[in-house]
């Protein structure tokens, strides 16, 4: 069997098809702000400016085969800083789509295949019945062992619930106790919520693999599931790309969705403001310091400043204003950590860590002891680069700290706490 080759794409022609009328990649002034502000610059001897110049010069063969497209996380920071607002990530998506499946990074392709393999749409292939079992099993254990939560619910397939809550597969699959803090938060605020046995999973590597048809199918399953249960809000939990792939997909594929897409961060902020989540920072007597990582997928690429502000409000409420140190740059100008775009699954560890060095420096410059982030890919990558570059910080979920502040964090729910935080319980 002959090995498949990567077809040559006509980037300039494709770019012209993609862009709205009047816009042009030729508007590029070659100033280099994109490359200067891109953590993937230099990897595989490529950077965003070079990419766009090569596209405009018709160097299609070189671009079609460049591995750099798998190191670009499509975080859109290049577009954000570009005075002409040129979107290079669209070309990267095209280039990814153009690679034969056999040539694409196997990890990303496999994750997409697993998503397609069950009705769960789980990138870890966890089937619906297993998800239902795990949820039930963990719930029973909590009810038995934590008297305060003996009546707690984790509803499944509840029609007409206000919130359809998704879940990153990592929890039911590898660390099921991490679901509990979230349930406790819903319990305390009295949220009318439900999981769905179908299409409950958050992750969507089909977009990252450049498989548009698979991406569409996944989103279709999820939209159908929410419509079927008649929920008003699809509530995205602490996972970044799930939101973007859903929101962007619904618009891109022109789907009918009878619900709103919202982020859990927005609700954390709302419930704290409304007094439903009575958190405070009294527990932080040792003035342990925190910074936050703005996930590109929900900040720069989606909600922008409003969610970034909510995240800071929640953080300050939890740890005390004086113990919060913002990363620089931050909000929409923040750097991608290098965990996005399927990079964590792509098997390009060395490149991914090179990319992550800038994030590591940002965190080191804050001197903070912990990074809070509502995104699993950010979480994993920031942990990994912390170990690799010998940092001394920890990474925590918001739900963990909320429950810690409320004094309801169970013993099995403390995986990400260092000794300093454990002492505060």
């Amino acid at each position, binding site marked *: 069997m002959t090995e498949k080759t990567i077809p040559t794409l006509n980037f300039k022609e494709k770019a012209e098809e993609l862009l709205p009328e009047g816009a042009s990649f030729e508007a590029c*002034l070659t*100033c*280099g*702000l994109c*490359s*200067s*502000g891109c953590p993937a*610059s*230099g990897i595989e*001897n490529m*950077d965003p400016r070079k990419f766009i110049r090569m596209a405009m010069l018709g160097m299609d063969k070189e671009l079609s085969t460049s591995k750099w497209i798998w190191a670009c996380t499509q975080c859109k920071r290049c577009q*954000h*800083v*570009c*005075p*002409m*607002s040129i979107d290079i990530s669209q070309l990267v998506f095209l280039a990814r789509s153009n690679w034969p499946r056999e040539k694409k990074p196997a990890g990303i392709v496999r994750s997409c295949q697993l998503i397609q393999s069950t009705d769960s749409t789980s990138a870890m292939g966890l089937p619906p019945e297993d998800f239902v079992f795990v949820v039930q099993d963990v719930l029973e254990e909590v009810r038995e062992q934590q008297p305060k939560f003996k009546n707690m619910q984790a509803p499944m397939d509840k029609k007409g619930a206000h919130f359809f809550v998704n879940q990153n597969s990592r929890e039911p699959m590898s660390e099921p106790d991490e679901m509990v803090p979230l349930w406790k938060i819903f319990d305390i605020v009295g949220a009318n919520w439900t999981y769905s046995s179908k299409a409950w999973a958050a992750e969507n590597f089909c977009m990252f693999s450049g498989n548009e048809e698979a991406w569409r199918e996944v989103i279709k399953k999820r939209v159908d599931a929410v419509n079927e249960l008649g929920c008003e809000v699809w509530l995205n939990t602490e996972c970044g790309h799930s939101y973007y792939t859903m*929101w962007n997909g*619904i*618009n891109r594929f022109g789907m009918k*969705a*009878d*619900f*709103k*897409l919202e982020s859990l961060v927005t609700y954390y902020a709302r419930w704290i403001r409304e007094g439903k989540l009575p958190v405070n920072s009294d527990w932080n007597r040792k003035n342990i310091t925190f910074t936050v990582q703005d996930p590109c997928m929900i900040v720069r*690429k*989606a*909600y*922008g*400043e409003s969610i970034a*502000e909510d995240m800071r409000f929640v953080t300050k409420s939890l740890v005390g204003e004086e113990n919060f140190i913002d990363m*620089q*740059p*931050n*909000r*929409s*100008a923040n750097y991608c950590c290098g965990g996005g775009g399927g990079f964590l699954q792509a098997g390009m560890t060395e490149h991914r860590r*090179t990319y992550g060095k*800038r994030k590591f*420096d*940002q965190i*080191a*410059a804050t001197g903070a002891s912990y990074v809070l982030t509502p995104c699993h890919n950010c979480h994993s990558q920031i942990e990994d680069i912390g170990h690799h570059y010998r940092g001394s910080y920890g990474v925590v979920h918001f739900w963990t700290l909320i429950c810690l502040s409320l004094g309801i964090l169970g013993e099995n729910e403390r995986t990400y706490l260092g000794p300093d935080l454990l002492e505060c319980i």
Partner: protein
Amino acid sequence: MSEEDRHFSAELAVIGTGLAGFAASIFALKRNIKTAQVGNTGAVAYTTGYLDLLGSLAPDYLASIEDPWQGIEQLRDSHPRHPLCRIPKDDIFTAFEQFTSFLGKCGIAYTPPGEFNVSGLTPAGTLKPTLCVPATMQVGSAAFSQKEPCVIIDFKGLKGFSSRQVVANLKDRWPKLSSKRVEFPDMVSGEIYPEVMARSLEVPATREKLAKILASAAGDVKVIGLPAILGMHAPDLVREELEQLTGLQIFEIPTMPPSVPGIRLREMFEQLFPQKGVTLIPQQKVDRLVFIENGAQLSLNDSFGPISIHAKSVILATGRFLSGGLKAGVDGVSEPLLKLPVTQPDSRREWYREKYTDRRGHAVNSAGIEVDSSFRPLDNHGRPYSKNLFAAGVILAHQDWIRGRCGAGVAIATAYKAVEEVEKLLK
């Protein structure tokens, strides 16, 4: 999918996020005017950080001028319609004072405006006459005027800044100037960017490593010049610490764009304005601007859908061609948002002189919109387009800011004046 429209209201809407737009918001904050600002902030990152008022005079822009205030007096005779001639000296001075002191309070210290221009060093080894300089660059101007022994240091892999070039062009005026190239700590090989180095220097451990390299490169010399890489968000602190660690006097020289001092300003504005109560929509351009009774309605779109802003007054600070404030077409130069008349050469043939490098500049570079004495743009009949509309910055006609070295001056002074007029209107 259900979505919510977003609506904001403000007393003042600033359209444009260049120096003029940001200056307008700063002056509006100072006067407690509730402000919303829209525009793509990208191009602010092109600035060198120098804030010039007036550095060179028409018609041939030959010599740099030392006294910009005297220069403006001369302009009043030769080019009375130049925007700087329409503003009293005291107001221009106050505008620069307020602008630089705001930047200082927000973490980027500047020298206050003085009576004379100082010589800012450029990466080409030329001198730029400028009124105010970032504190990180001040030592360089002083060292040049004293002709002190000095080493300019550059870095392996860094493009857009060559210490040899700086020295080659300055050597005849600064004999004790020399150059050296060193390696920046912990950078992987290949091209490295000033932005990356600057961010890396926000980490104390990187500063310590670099300090050792710099001390060794300086030898017996006590003053060193670096490309502008001394941190992004706390440049004064980074410089101070490096000076302490090395025992040297250290200054920055801007690099070729994208230059760190410009990115510093951009990120500072983007972060601080929302905290100070300005509604900043930083990545979008206004699609439509309509004047209604007692105000204006701005419409724009971002990826989430429509945004509308109602404002009692508007300052148009959309700049020139790069940022889209003016548009050059086959039929001439136009102002795309409101179709305001643009003063310009009679035909395209007259836009440029024969030689691109002609010292006298080109007629198209003085194109722009006309305003009345209150900085209200004029319509085709020479009347104010709306009593609620004002304009500031280089969209104004009758100035060639690049040749005149007066870009910041026009931006800051006219923004000051426009906001003063907005305040009068609101009262």
